[in-house]
């Protein structure tokens, strides 16, 4: 039996990892909640954001946390443009087509990155990457603690946007009743693109939080997004609270199963959970719309 001296740090570390999962899942669930599509390009966009954060540091010496200030609006625009000018027009409003277009985008982005940067794995060195924060008996890496706090802040900001701004109200209106929203003068195509932009902006923040402790290669985003799919399905497609709680939960499950079963089987644990939830409770544990 493992003592609490091992268990507590494992749970705390799981929560820290889970926070980043939650942020990636937040973007995914936001897009699903409003557009009712699964964005299969989410992983490729995350990889692209990680490359952007990497090169911001490499070429301009930007600290990843400061790069957030530039990359978040940039990726908002990327997401906005993709939905407004590629996915929306190409899909002719058919769900099956949207699936294919986002898959096509994923293939294009991922392989363009592969072509441009080869399969090499890149990392950056930051002086504080190995600093430790002591919480009770647990020692936690500083970047992970920062990530945890930033994710909570982002979730709060997102909630405030959705709750109190006109755009947020329009987004919720479109999510609930698209036709009604259109009839009351809301530009649905614009709101769709804004939502897609917000979801993509979440990825830019996630990438900046990941890059201090993680590596980047053309497939780096995929592992996270498969976990994010699990989180979103678990928390209920379209549910923001579900994404947050689901993300933290999956982080802890992964950390604990990694502790007991080893790294590669821990991954299977997540997939097993994913498939079981999909099959037996596809609406998730908190199945509700944004």
């Amino acid at each position, binding site marked *: 039996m493992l003592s609490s001296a091992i268990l507590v740090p494992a749970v705390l570390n799981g929560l820290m990892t889970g926070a980043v999962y939650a942020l990636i899942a937040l973007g995914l669930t936001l897009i699903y909640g409003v557009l009712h599509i699964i964005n299969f390009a989410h992983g490729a966009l995350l990889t692209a954001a990680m490359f952007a954060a990497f090169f911001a540091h490499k070429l301009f010496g930007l600290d990843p946390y400061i790069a957030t200030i530039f990359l978040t609006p940039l990726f908002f625009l990327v997401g906005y443009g993709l939905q407004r000018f590629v996915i929306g*027009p190409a899909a002719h409003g058919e769900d099956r087509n949207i699936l294919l277009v986002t898959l096509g985008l994923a293939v294009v982005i991922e*392989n363009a990155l592969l072509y441009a940067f080869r399969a090499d794995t890149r990392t950056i060195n930051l002086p504080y990457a190995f600093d430790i924060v002591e919480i009770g008996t647990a020692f936690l890496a500083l970047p992970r603690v920062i990530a945890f706090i930033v994710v909570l802040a982002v979730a709060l900001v997102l909630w405030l946007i959705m709750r109190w701004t006109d755009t947020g109200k329009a987004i919720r209106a479109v999510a609930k009743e698209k036709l009604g929203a259109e009839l009351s003068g809301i530009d649905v195509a614009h709101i769709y693109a804004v939502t897609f932009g917000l979801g993509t902006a979440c990825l830019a923040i996630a990438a900046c939080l990941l890059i201090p402790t993680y590596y980047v290669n053309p497939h780096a985003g995929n592992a996270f997004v498969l976990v994010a799919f699990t989180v979103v399905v678990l928390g209920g497609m379209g549910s923001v609270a579900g994404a947050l709680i689901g993300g933290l939960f999956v982080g802890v499950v992964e950390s604990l199963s990694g502790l007991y079963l080893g790294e590669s089987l821990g991954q299977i644990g997540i997939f097993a959970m994913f498939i079981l939830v999909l099959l037996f409770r596809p609406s998730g544990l908190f199945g509700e719309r944004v």
Partner: protein
Amino acid sequence: MRRLAPILVAMALLATVPLITSSNVVLNFLVMALLIALVGQGWNLLGGYGGQYSFGHAAFFGTGAYVTAILQMRYGINAWLGVCVGIAAGALVGAVIGALSFRSGLKGSYFALVTLAFAEVLRIIASVAPITGAGVGTLITLDLRPEAFQFQSRAPFYWIVLALVGLSLILIRMIEDSRFGAYLIAVRENEDAAQALGVNTTMVKLAAMTISAAITAAGGCFYAQYFLFIDAGIAYGPWISVEALLAPIIGGIGTVFGPLLGALVVKTLGELTKLVTGDAPGLDLVIYGGVLILVVAFAPRGIAGILADLRHRLLSPRTAVPASLERGHG
């Protein structure tokens, strides 16, 4: 019989290629194109006719490939028998995944997601399990005898994969003309209405998925025999899931010849890219993904649709409306 004639003519024409050229480059190119046509035909039955878009046909391809290779190398079973068992195993995996997901009522995005997840689970298992050779992969020992499903030249391989493609074309044509095919198309067009009319939609989708998986698994079995090496990334990797849907969508989704046309175009594009830019990794897939988006955006019925429009326009010059507009995007 009249409906089968175009298939037989196409197959007869393609069968003469090795008599005209013995160039390994040409034959290798055509073998790969036909292999993708076969794998894509499997996807086409479920996705094109049934409207159930799978993003994880690698699950069936990989199972066929691994079962074929493992039976030979670990149990000394004859290769031809191994291929037959491989196809059956692929069909079984299709039936299991289909039964689980259709009984849970998964469709659309959710179905795509769950098939993708199953393929990924199989890939991870194959990359750690000892029986698949884990990270090293499985190598089939060189044994150039027809009894071992290995040949000195590429021509016999070419004829075998051509025969498999021919069989799949005939099978799909027969399904298209059958009651089952009508049910399947009804499910694609409006599942609730089909169910209301008394079609057992779950069983129809399940049958389609099983046959679909068997066809794609046949491609995997052939791949193992042709290249004599597989690993988890090849067998269960996302590349084959993407190519499986790319060929029918580009060629003409829900048409008999769509996957074959699409595979030839996709592979030609791939080779042209290599000619222009050298062997740069990734660039061919960038183009595939771009073509996928363009086809969905501008030619939802693929090459077959474009050809039908052209024929329509040539045969009746007075009607300026292309067939695609008359019939709507569907």
